[in-house]
């Protein structure tokens, strides 16, 4: 690495652009990169959420990603409610008493998604008069909109994945037509081959070639399928990266690319395996495309005390600092029209935030880029 320090930019869990030093960055001299694309000077609206069941959890998940909103607390009479656990993960305050939360001095909007009619009276008598209250059917509509948004996100992810598969055509043709050429040539030879040993050897070559070809269809159909929305499991990250390498080979030529793997074998994270595969395929494809004419792709997984790290590094063209923010925005692309959807990194950010992780980029023009995903460490039982 050269003497000028690469810059680090990170989008935190709330989607707010901010700078922080990352333990994941291999460069000790990283300079934090401050960005102001999001209107951080606007005072966020302070919101309290009452109810931490499915509705409250969905609202929490969505609202905590919006920079113009600050969730000042969430409460539920059931201490085991799923939303309270999620709130702790997101570092949103969990407030034991409803009255304490709704009397908070800063609160501007109270979202009541408990569906509990008894709460109406409490709100009327205890809530601060300057706070707006959304309850009953109004909060129900809000919840439905949130669910609708989550469906749209899943659709977007799938659409972007399918659009990407279009670029696999050349790779698939190469990987199917080459074995077919071998099969055809050997079969033609077998028509008049008399040497028994040669016949056996060539028949075995044909069988092996057919098996290689069927593997292509198996890989791709499993990749193209719609990922089940709540299919969460403990995902072994290094194995997933290897699988992504196989898929990415269809999208981009790996000629003249050296691949370095630095895996922590046991690195695993809780998440949707299909979505993670999609994330890794995207990052690897981007990295290879950045290295037109060759370079080194480094895949790294690491286990830290509270987190697991996945890093995809390239020695490619790099990203100018003024684009660090933009690359995560929807429809941003540097590719020619028809070549990229501009949704790749936007979707990656969304998937990683859903997993309560972060994604950061370190880059230097002409040197390369490092994308670092940090995920909460799941304790294996």
């Amino acid at each position, binding site marked *: 690495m050269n003497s000028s320090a690469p810059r680090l930019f990170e989008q935190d869990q709330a989607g707010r652009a901010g700078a922080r030093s990352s333990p994941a960055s291999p460069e000790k001299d990283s300079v934090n990169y401050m960005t102001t694309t999001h209107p951080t000077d606007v005072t966020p609206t302070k919101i309290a959420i009452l109810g931490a069941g499915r509705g409250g959890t969905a609202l929490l998940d969505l609202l905590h990603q919006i920079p113009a909103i600050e969730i000042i607390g969430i409460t539920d009479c059931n201490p085991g409610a799923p939303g309270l656990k999620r709130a702790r993960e997101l570092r949103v305050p969990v407030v034991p008493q409803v009255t304490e939360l709704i009397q908070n001095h800063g609160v501007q909007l109270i979202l009541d998604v408990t569906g509990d009619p008894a709460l109406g009276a409490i709100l009327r008598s205890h809530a601060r008069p300057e706070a707006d209250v959304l309850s009953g059917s109004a909060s129900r509509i809000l919840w439905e909109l949130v669910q609708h948004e989550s469906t749209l996100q899943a659709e977007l992810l799938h659409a972007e994945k399918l659009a990407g598969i279009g670029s696999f*055509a*050349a790779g698939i*043709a*190469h*990987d*199917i*037509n*080459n*074995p*077919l*050429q*071998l*099969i*055809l*040539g*050997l079969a*033609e*030879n077998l028509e008049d081959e008399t040497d028994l040993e040669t016949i056996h050897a060539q028949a075995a*070559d044909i069988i092996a*070639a057919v098996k290689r070809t069927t593997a292509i269809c198996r890989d791709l159909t499993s990749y193209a399928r719609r990922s089940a929305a709540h299919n969460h499991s403990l995902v072994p990250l290094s194995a997933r990266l290897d699988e992504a390498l196989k898929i990415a080979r269809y999208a981009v*030529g790996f*000629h*003249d690319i050296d691949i370095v793997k630095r895996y922590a074998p046991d690195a695993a994270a809780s998440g949707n395996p299909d979505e993670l595969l999609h994330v890794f395929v995207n990052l690897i494809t981007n990295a290879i495309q950045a290295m037109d004419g060759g370079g080194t792709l480094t895949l790294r997984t690491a286990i830290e005390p509270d987190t697991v790290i996945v890093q995809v590094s390239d020695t490619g063209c790099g990203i100018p600092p003024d684009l660090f923010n933009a690359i995560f925005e929807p429809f941003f692309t540097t590719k020619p029209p028809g070549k990229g959807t501009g949704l790749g990194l936007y979707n990656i950010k969304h998937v990683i935030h859903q997993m309560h992780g972060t994604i950061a980029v370190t880059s230097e023009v002409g040197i390369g880029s490092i994308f670092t995903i940090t995920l909460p460490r799941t304790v294996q039982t």
Partner: protein
Amino acid sequence: MSEFKSGFFVGGDACNGRILVVDDEPDIRKVVKMTLQKAGYDVLEAENGEKAIETINSGENRLLLDVMVCDIRMPKVNGIEAIAYFRQNYPRVPLIVLTGFPDTDMATSLLRQGVVDYLVKPVEGEKLKAAVARAMEQRELAPL
């Protein structure tokens, strides 16, 4: 080094010409070589454009190579770059493209550059041999 000479008979095998097969897949080189050898050609192999350029520039090949069969997607020097080099430096050697990915725009552009045939894998032995035979007729003799 082979003892074959274009148009000569050596050891009972007819040598119809010397062909260089350029493909990064050993399987493809093997099967194309097998087909062409059975048709009486002397076949050389190269695994990428760089090796192909090395091969044509070594020893008697610069004089005796008759036809090249070249893939497009290859590491190091790819087919497009190699073809440009051969057209410039060895315009007398006819080029046949044998690719796994049919691309009309690329085919048009390559044929315009003087490539004599654009074959898409999998290609039958008879078609390949016919293409090579046509190319042999188009080749020009090396300048003395």
